[in-house]
């Protein structure tokens, strides 16, 4: 085998970039769609704006088989324990996109029964604004998340300090 064959057939990289490349191009979403943003999320999955270009088409509806939780829609006080339970069931590494105004801050609903932002209780990575956001906006949020995943290092993860 001569040197040109090796150069055109073998790729060298660091372990971290390889892992990050694999993770960012196959983020499997778990759509937690409650309200109008759920319908726009269905439009993201459909033919015109197609999220499977980014490798994110495997919607499994099971938290144990996905690594991206998309909170789409308003979360009421009756639904919050369900969201916490689903978040805890997802295995690491996991990311959260908060889609729409209601999931990020409560939106138009400043009332007794809407949680004013899920980031009070769950760590959120990307916020997508809009009411509802256009499907192109959700795709941009996903691409920003891919940039975040790309910059991660393995040394970022460590066990939480015991109390």
């Amino acid at each position, binding site marked *: 085998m001569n040197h040109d064959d090796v150069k055109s057939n073998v790729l060298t990289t660091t372990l971290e970039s390889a892992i990050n490349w694999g993770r960012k191009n196959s983020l499997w979403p778990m759509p937690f769609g409650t*309200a109008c943003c759920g319908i*726009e999320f269905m439009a993201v999955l459909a*033919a015109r704006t197609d999220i499977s270009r980014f490798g994110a088409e495997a919607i499994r*509806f099971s938290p144990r088989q996905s690594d991206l939780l998309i909170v789409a829609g308003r979360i009421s006080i009756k639904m919050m324990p369900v969201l916490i339970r689903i978040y805890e069931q997802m295995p690491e590494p996991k990311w959260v996109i908060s889609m729409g105004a209601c999931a990020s801050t409560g939106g138009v609903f400043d009332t007794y*029964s809407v949680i004013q932002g899920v980031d009070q209780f769950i760590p959120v990575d990307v916020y997508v604004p809009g009411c509802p956001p256009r499907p192109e906006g959700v795709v941009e949020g996903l691409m920003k998340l891919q940039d975040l995943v790309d910059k991660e290092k393995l040394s970022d993860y460590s066990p939480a300090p015991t109390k």
Partner: protein
Amino acid sequence: MTRVTEQTLETDKMVLNFGPQHPATHGTLRIIMELEGETVTKATPEIGYLHSGFEKLGEDLDFNQYITITDRMNYLSPLCNNVAYALAAEKLIGIEVSKRTEYIRVLMCELSRIADHLLNVGMLAVDLGAMTAFLYGFKLREDIYDLFEIATGTRLTTSYTLVGGLMRDIPEGYDKAVLKVLDEVDEVANDIETLLNKNRIWQDRTKNIGIISKDDAISYGISGPMARATGIEWDIRVNEPYSRYDEFDFDVAIALNGDVFDRYLVRMEEIRQSIKICRQSLSKMPAGDVIVDPGLGYSLPPKDEVYNSIEGLIYHFEVTMPNRGMVPPVGEAYVPTESPNGELGFYIVSDGNRTPYRVRTRPPSLINYSIFSKLIEGHMLSDAPAILGSINIIAGELDR
């Protein structure tokens, strides 16, 4: 060694939680089912997972601001909600709108009806395994969303009507765009019916499932395509016409058996009748103004008048400043309209202030859903998605 016979086996009822997060529930519903084998013996629905306090918000926002909130109730056909609220507010205050406004409102309502029925049939098909109807329907919905975007500015939460008119007029050349989309709707409806109507699997999974009798339908307050599939001849657009529906010529689809298959057929036929109404509305569209006289203090004057004349500026301030503007009479009004789900009506009570005293939505999804526990008894577990899909539950309207 004794042989185990049927008498020695003990069976127990299993309790299954069809939870609030599930791909086959349309939104956040929860059903607790008791199963014996595969057959459901008892089902208890639990709702309220999306309760957002819409009616409490209505007491703090004024008549025009609440229209933005009505979009978020039935988010598959938001223009129907806007029109229903505007009609109730106009009946309370006593305003008459122009003929052009009513024709445009009819056009928008019927386009939303097409979009809603396409999505409902698509989701019913996906739950039973037929993915194609969903993808065809969604591609067409994107075209209808483009039409909404040209007229109102956004795809989903449109807030198009005002008390006394519309936010803005439809632009030039809109009718050509609508006619093109209507031709496509015709083709897609034909495609979906070719795929599903005579399909042996579809018929086996939807015929004789979830049969509602006429007396049950009246006792449970069911309206809309679900009621018309049982044989009740009641369509508010024909029997109690609003917004000049009596000037349009269309048929009402009625089926006789009351099962899931009939509800699907009624919805497909309603898509065709909506296409007819849209074409008539475009061909007979009168010229005129869409905003009633802004001097009354209810609807905003057009922007070029606000910026260029002193009367426009004064009227704008009269409508929007907190302690000025509309003084509605003390009273109450309820206007029923025919939304794609059934009878949608807003009941507004006013005490003379600029915000209503009480705004109540009559939710067709909630009232149609209450018959579910009766329908599922005796059927198998896999019939539950079929029945749920045919009721067309929209969680935003169910819980408000």
